[in-house]
């Protein structure tokens, strides 16, 4: 699809090239915004302007647009993929789209604004490096805009871009843009989002999407695509503590592909945070046993170090008891496993959550029994405060206290998105009923508990 990747780039990236290779990086973004703010059109425009839409797809969109009596191609049709979506002219579910420039590939989660907006925005935001929030220049910040921004802030998406859309419908007015931007920034600051960047755009006409528009001469910033190309995709893992949930213990024994590996024993997982090197001292959690990394494998390749988010296999000096679900962490800076968690959950179940309810909690590669001890309040996304509640309904965001059947080395979500995220699962039918964030809160609410989450049953 990535038609803008040029032959030159590809040649430079080819193995064996003598010049420093330009390796494209991956950026994950999600869209958010109120209904009719033009999200599908913006996504269609990004795909179109990066030449990620093929001629047969354009032909199909033009045909359908004509059939519906439209004069131009409705770019929203590029993304509304389900029959029901096309019938109703709305987006029902998150759709994933791909586009690329010479330096970057993008995975875009297109999140619908109205139906199940919390579920969809939480889903899209959970993996996003950047959220592009659409605001209609004529309408400014609406209730839904505010709610989406609150969810984005809660999920701690690292970057927020505000696309002030339909700027063509306000005659490209700088005054209107400045007013809307000030309004959005005020809400963002209330939510603790400091670095939101606003851009005046017309998704329909393409102003400031791929190229800077000469119809907004007063705007000196980058186009949306230029901005998305320059945003760093992730924090440098060197600044984080090493963690790796163990997905599998690899012990081929007699089944080894090569007889030299019959005694191989490795711990397979994805590095959740930080860097691990051969020779590092690590600790297995929750057992607390310490050992040293003697080898790092990625398939047949042997590595000197691995970093987030690589999927690798670690070999350790001692045959200590480590099984699936355990976490291997830097010995010097390991989280304390706990059976008691205070968290914010986005409730996604059809039936409400009530105190005393039994569930399964999945954190990393570990699934344990859990029950909801108390419900400590539900977030009011309009005034951003918490109000008392005795249950959480579908799409509610609330604070809960959970008790776990076994200690789990969770971390504060504010410290580590990976180490603080969990699912709540209905043990009967297997459905995912909540997205959970340990200790999380909106940044303006009471700070998350800072006391170490030690537990009396935790014993090294």
């Amino acid at each position: 699809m990535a038609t803008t990747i040029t032959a030159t780039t590809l040649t430079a990236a080819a193995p064996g090239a003598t010049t420093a290779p330009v390796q494209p990086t991956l950026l994950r973004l999600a869209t958010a915004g109120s209904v009719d703010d033009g999200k599908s059109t913006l996504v269609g425009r990004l795909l179109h302007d990066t030449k990620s839409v093929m001629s047969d797809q354009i032909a199909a969109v033009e045909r359908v647009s004509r059939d519906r009596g439209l004069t131009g191609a409705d770019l929203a049709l590029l993304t509304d993929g389900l029959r029901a979506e096309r019938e109703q002219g709305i987006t029902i579910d998150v759709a994933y789209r791909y586009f690329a420039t010479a330096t970057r590939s993008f995975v875009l989660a297109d999140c619908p604004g109205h139906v199940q907006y919390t579920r969809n925005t939480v889903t899209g935001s959970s993996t996003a490096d950047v959220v592009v929030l659409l605001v209609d220049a004529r309408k400014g910040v609406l209730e839904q805009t505010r709610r989406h921004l609150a969810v984005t802030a809660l999920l701690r998406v690292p970057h927020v871009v505000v696309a002030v859309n339909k700027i063509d419908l306000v005659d490209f007015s700088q005054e209107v843009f400045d007013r809307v931007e000030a309004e959005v920034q005020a809400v963002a600051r209330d939510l603790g989002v400091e670095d939101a960047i606003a851009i005046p755009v017309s998704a329909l006409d393409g102003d400031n999407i791929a190229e800077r528009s000469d119809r907004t001469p007063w705007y000196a910033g980058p186009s949306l695509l230029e901005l998305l190309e320059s945003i760093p995709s992730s924090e440098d893992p060197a600044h984080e503590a090493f963690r790796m949930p163990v997905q599998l213990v690899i012990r081929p024994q007699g089944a080894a592909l090569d007889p030299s590996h019959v005694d191989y024993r490795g711990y397979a997982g994805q590095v959740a945070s930080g860097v691990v090197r051969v020779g590092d001292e690590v600790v297995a959690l929750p057992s607390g046993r310490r050992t040293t990394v003697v080898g790092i494998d990625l398939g047949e390749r042997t590595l000197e170090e691995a970093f987030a988010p690589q999927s690798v296999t670690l070999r350790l000096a001692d045959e200590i008891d480590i099984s699936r679900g355990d976490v291997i962490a830097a010995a010097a800076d390991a989280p304390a496993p706990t059976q008691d968690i205070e968290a914010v959950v986005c409730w996604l179940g059809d039936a409400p959550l009530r105190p005393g309810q039994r569930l399964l909690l999945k954190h990393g590669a570990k699934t344990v029994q859990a029950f909801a001890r108390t419900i400590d309040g539900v977030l009011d996304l309009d005034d951003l405060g918490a109000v008392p509640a005795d249950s959480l309904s579908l799409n509610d965001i609330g604070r809960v206290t959970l008790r776990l059947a076994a200690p789990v080395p969770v971390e504060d979500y504010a410290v580590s998105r990976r180490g603080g995220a969990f699912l709540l699962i209905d043990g009967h039918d297997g459905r995912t009923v909540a997205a959970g964030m340990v200790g999380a809160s909106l940044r303006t609410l009471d700070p998350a508990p800072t006391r170490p989450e030690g537990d009396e049953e935790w014993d090294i």
Partner: protein
Amino acid sequence: MTSPAAYPQSATPAMGERRLSQLDALEAESILVIREIAAELERPVLLFSGGKDSVVMLHLAAKAFWPAPIPFPVLHVDTGHNFPEVLAYRDETVERLGLRLEVASVQDYIDDGRLRERADGTRNPLQTQPLLDAIAEHRFDGVFGGGRRDEEKARAKERIVSLRDEFGQWDPKNQRPELWNLFNPRHRPGEHVRVFPISNWTELDVWRYIEREDIPLAPLYYAHEREVFRRDGMWLAVGPYSQPRDDETVETRLVRYRTVGDMSCTGAVESSASTNAEIVLEVAASTLTERGATRADDRISEAAMEDRKKEGYF
């Protein structure tokens, strides 16, 4: 206020900086998914057609479990109209990796009357029943497929781990939220999950990865001379399952295949690309989707794929 600060850092990793390239990031995600499903489920299986996407998936699975063998069998739903060189390649690959191959045969179903040949001759939609029967017979609870979200609009709505009910049906309006990188394949007895580890890969990513990893493929992906005839804007191969009509003339052309499916409905593209590097350049410059260029069955209606998927298709 109107000139946002540019980000000081470049998005392109400098030498020595710890940031994964796009292909490495995709590889890491796919291996995570494959391992997680193998660990959580009792009886996974991987759908292997011999096509490039399923080969990449197998390659990732081999990496995920190395130096242990891939801990699940592979399943091929054989339409009976496959290219013979693809079947040969399938068998070689299974042999090379020491895998157990199960075959569900559409031909068997047609022979004993459980399925009937369609008027248009395509057998792709006929694969659903043998697939679901094989899943039930072997009690497979997780089925790895090589589907990619960039292929098609309905696939773009698909989860990486996607629930199928006891009839094998997909309910696109009631999908589980997929949060962070925490995958949940739990299901009730009789249900199963379809798992798409390369959901986030594009056709170009697949080819760049094949090039980088030097993965052997079936020969018809590379330029070769073949007897073809023109139908519906595609070059179809002359073979036992696809014969030209009276008004269609047979020509010998230099072609290759972008997708590999039934001989009767998979079109070849004119190409002189004979190496992975040449194919990467060709795909990068292409203005047609691979399905638009090569699949007659996907042109039937705007919702052809969605309808097939709802019934339990790949």
